[in-house]
């Protein structure tokens, strides 16, 4: 009887299992554990993590280190992954021609057209002229209403107002005859004076009809066809607003510009091609498919993408002592996404959802200081250390301990930095592939699309369900059920969407609805994991035909996600294959596959009286 431990050093997690091997080759699994990987996978830094996890697994098995005969460790090859985002559009408002921030409490309702005049100069206006009054900072709402009423009494036609403070309702409540008023205009001093302008406010629950319509703006300002074409982006930007202001300035414009984001050069076995990043993900992935298998990728210096690819290359170069020029980027994944950005030239802090392209890249190497790592481990544990076989083989062996599986089988390993796949017949692994784009990219997409600038919160939103705080004492879950709390919720959480994380309810900043956050979360998982699952399976399936695969077993940390395995199963459902989350040894779920496989392989070899590893 020998006591062995199988150890899988992953990019983020190190897993182990402890088992007893009989002379006959029969294996009895006693316990398993996991711990965060220390340092970069495949380097001597990993020793600390391995020692920790072996200790935990032994404790779970009720055994001591002194009883351990052998440690089997996988051939952990370093994987360096990188992420970058390029924003490829921007919105610019020139000459302060439009205000579209949609404040919560505008005043009045209707459309007012007139010449812009400062509140202080209202007294000099001649009667009969329609004016739009611009009320700057520091004017009390009572004084503003009083001044407007006085002007109207003199015969000045006050058609509307634009106000700095959050005072629209207060002012309109005090007017003798209400007019549309847009408030909360932070940079009110930039509103051009002496220009024709229109203010429109819709009733509560409705949206504006005139200023969001190119022909509406044309009617208001008497524009011809050519001028109307120029003003169309303004109308488009105001669609869906409850309120808006448009000022007819000579060169005023709202433009959506494409930002040049450099090009990406993809070198593959079938040729080398360049593609402009701002062409979008579909174009980039199309070029990749055309030159695949990829042999290298590089970006333009001075761009985010170029910088990221260079960093990935340099990190791997340092790690393995290879020349940077000899490091090869093995895969990239491009994803279309959105980033809320401040509108240049905006007067009230308006944001626009700009297009962006996210790129994940990955490089791995078969050269790593494994021998050094094994030697250090031997020293640290005082136990014999054997380096096991190819990781994919071990993963398949472990996956096949899932009840109900059979060959041919494909495994999908969903990690943090990469998505891996391998397909195996009864005889062993026939093909394996490693792709860029996994859990970390999903987090980054959620972070940028919701404008959070908070990676940790984005990670929580990825992993945990959402709810909306409806009162101080209950939240409504995504599925519509209510959950009650015993302690009253703090005011910062009231009426907000919260993430039900392990550490408690975390409010999500911003005004996104629960449905929107949910949609962003699911779409990020789809754009990365479903796309990569199909991409990976297509590359390992016999003849590129997924139907030739009988079983797909999903493994890895990201397989524990509450939505990802279902999204993948749904995507492959039409292909007649059995796809589901693995359940290693019928008890470990998608975890511990490689560690289990190492033990299983060792037992097989021991049973056949062969040596394994070095």
């Amino acid at each position, binding site marked *: 009887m020998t006591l062995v431990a199988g150890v899988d050093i992953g990019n983020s997690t190190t897993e182990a299992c402890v088992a007893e091997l009989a002379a006959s080759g029969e294996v009895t699994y006693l316990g398993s554990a996991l711990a965060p990987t220390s340092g970069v996978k495949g380097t001597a830094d990993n020793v600390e993590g391995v020692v920790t996890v072996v200790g935990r697994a032994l404790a779970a098995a009720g055994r001591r280190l002194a009883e351990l005969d052998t440690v089997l460790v996988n051939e952990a090859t370093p994987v360096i992954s990188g992420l970058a985002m390029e924003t490829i559009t921007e919105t610019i408002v020139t000459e302060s021609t439009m205000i579209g921030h949609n404040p*919560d*409490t505008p005043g009045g309702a209707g459309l007012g057209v007139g010449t812009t005049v400062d509140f202080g100069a209202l007294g000099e206006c001649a009667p009969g002229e329609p004016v739009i009054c611009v009320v700057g900072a520091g004017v009390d*709402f009572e004084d503003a209403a009083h001044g407007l009423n006085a002007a109207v009494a003199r015969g000045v036609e006050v058609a509307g107002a634009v106000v700095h403070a*959050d*005072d*629209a*309702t*207060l002012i309109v*409540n005090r007017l003798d005859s209400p007019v549309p008023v847009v408030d909360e205009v932070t940079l009110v001093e930039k509103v051009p004076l002496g220009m024709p302008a229109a203010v429109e406010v819709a009733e509560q629950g409705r949206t504006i009809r005139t200023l969001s319509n190119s022909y509406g703006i044309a009617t208001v300002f008497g524009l011809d066809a050519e001028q109307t074409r120029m003003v169309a982006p303004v109308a488009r930007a105001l669609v869906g607003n409850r309120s808006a202001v448009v000022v007819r300035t000579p060169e005023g414009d709202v433009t959506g510009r494409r930002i040049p984001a450099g090009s990406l050069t993809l070198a593959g076995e079938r040729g080398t091609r360049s593609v402009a990043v701002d062409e979008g993900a579909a174009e980039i992935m199309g070029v990749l498919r055309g030159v695949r298998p990829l042999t290298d990728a590089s970006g333009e210096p001075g761009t985010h993408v170029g910088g990221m690819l260079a960093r990935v290359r340099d990190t791997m170069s340092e790690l393995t002592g290879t020349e940077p020029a000899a490091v090869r980027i093995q895969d990239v994944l491009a994803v279309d996404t959105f980033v809320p950005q401040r509108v240049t030239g905006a007067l009230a802090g308006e944001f626009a959802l700009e297009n962006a392209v996210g790129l994940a890249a990955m490089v791995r190497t078969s050269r790593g200081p494994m021998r050094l790592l094994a030697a250090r481990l031997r020293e640290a544990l005082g136990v014999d250390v054997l380096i096991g076989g190819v990781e994919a083989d071990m993963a398949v062996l472990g996956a096949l301990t899932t009840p109900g599986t059979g060959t041919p089988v494909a495994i999908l390993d969903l990690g943090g930095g990469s998505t891996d796949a391998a397909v195996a017949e009864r005889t062993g692994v026939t093909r394996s592939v490693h792709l860029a784009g996994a859990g970390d990219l999903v987090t980054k997409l959620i972070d940028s699309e919701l404008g959070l600038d908070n990676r940790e919160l984005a990670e929580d939103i990825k992993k945990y369900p959402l709810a909306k705080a*409806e*009162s*101080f*004492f209950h939240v409504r879950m995504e599925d519509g059920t209510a959950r009650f709390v015993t302690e*009253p919720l703090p*005011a*910062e959480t*009231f*009426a*907000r969407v919260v993430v039900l994380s392990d550490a408690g309810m975390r409010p999500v900043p911003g*005004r996104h609805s629960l449905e929107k956050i949910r949609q962003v979360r699911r779409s990020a998982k789809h754009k990365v994991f479903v796309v990569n699952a199909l991409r990976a399976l297509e590359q390992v399936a016999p003849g590129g035909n997924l139907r030739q695969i009988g079983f797909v077993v999903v493994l890895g940390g990201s397989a524990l996600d509450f939505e990802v395995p279902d999204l993948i199963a749904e995507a492959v459902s039409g292909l007649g294959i059995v796809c589901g989350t693995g359940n290693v040894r019928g008890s470990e779920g998608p975890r511990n596959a490689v560690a289990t496989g190492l033990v299983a392989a060792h037992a097989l070899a021991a049973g056949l009286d062969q040596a394994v590893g070095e």
Partner: protein
Amino acid sequence: MGVRDRGAATTTRAVPPAIVVRCAEDAAAVLRDVLAGVEEEGVPVRVELVPGGDARDAATLAFAAARASSLDVGVGIDREGAGCVQHAKRPEDRPALTGPRERARLLGHNAARLVTGIPVKT
């Protein structure tokens, strides 16, 4: 033939649903700001002035005001102008919001937002 709500006909509503503000008499300037915040959010409000001697701390005033409000939200303003927003269903010692006199306007907005059910302003 429609449905006639005989109950509604016989019960006369004495006061419309409103936030109640209990304010110490000496803090009139602060009161104006609070009321402006509530009015801007579009929620009805009713004021009860408290004579100097009877004015307690803002939290006690707020809690009593919340209990008196049919919308369950009350604002208390003490003699120094410090303010507090309470909800009738919260424990008395755990007010929903507090603020110094300089943020009275914001307090008004947020008291109203507890009624309209949108996130508070910061």
